[in-house]
């Protein structure tokens, strides 16, 4: 039971948390601007919404699972 709980909980370390936070902020702000520009250039609202939805899905894949990159700085407890 415990390994399953660990997978679902998906803990990451403090530096990883800071990283996920800044990645999701920058990514979403940038994809908002990009999808507006793409839709305006192609004159299609479908393109805007498609770009925005795809980039958000990609962000979920990047940010939600506890990738090893976010666990490189484990807290060292005093022995």
């Amino acid at each position, binding site marked *: 039971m415990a390994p399953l709980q660990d997978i679902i909980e998906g803990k990451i370390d403090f530096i990883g948390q800071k990283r996920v936070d800044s990645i999701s902020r920058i990514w979403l702000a940038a994809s908002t601007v990009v999808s507006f520009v793409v839709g*305006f250039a192609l004159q299609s609202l479908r393109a805007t919404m498609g770009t925005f939805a795809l980039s958000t899905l990609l962000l979920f894949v990047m940010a939600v699972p506890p990738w090893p990159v976010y666990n490189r700085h484990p807290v060292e407890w005093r022995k």
Partner: protein
Amino acid sequence: MHSALARINNVSSLFSTCLMVLLAAVALSSLFATADPKGKIDVVSLKVYNAKAKRYPFKEQEFGFVKFDIDADLSPLFHWNTKQLFVYLEAEYANTQGVNNTIVLWDRIVRRKEDAHVVVASGRNKYKLKELYESFKNTSPATFSLKYNMMPYVGLLMYGEAARTEGHEIPEARDAIA
């Protein structure tokens, strides 16, 4: 942000904020699209007949019959945020009581840019042209106008007028031939 659930929460809340900003930007951008296409209407004939009023078997009332040509290219109104156009022909006149009446005689819904060049040759009014006071006697001349309502995917409805005719004298009522 320590657990997967917290990260889902954080990302999706930021996502909904960004979505609102994106939609607001789209709605604002379409306010700057100020296409004002013009077309023309010709009223070929305008006749008034006495006829039985519906639902009142012994009441007679005057009905107007309009025949018109429309040629208006409304395709400039189609941009990325245009869902559809509601195009309608209106008759305007002042009745004997001095009340300005506008009556929608004909309409069409345009869903695609390819269909936006509205051409109607000898069209007839789809909806009844009748006076509340049952007679067009002594009313002012009627002007006909082609108007449109642009419906966007996101944002505000836009109204406009594509064409307007001179005043047409509404003729005396004639008795319909049986």
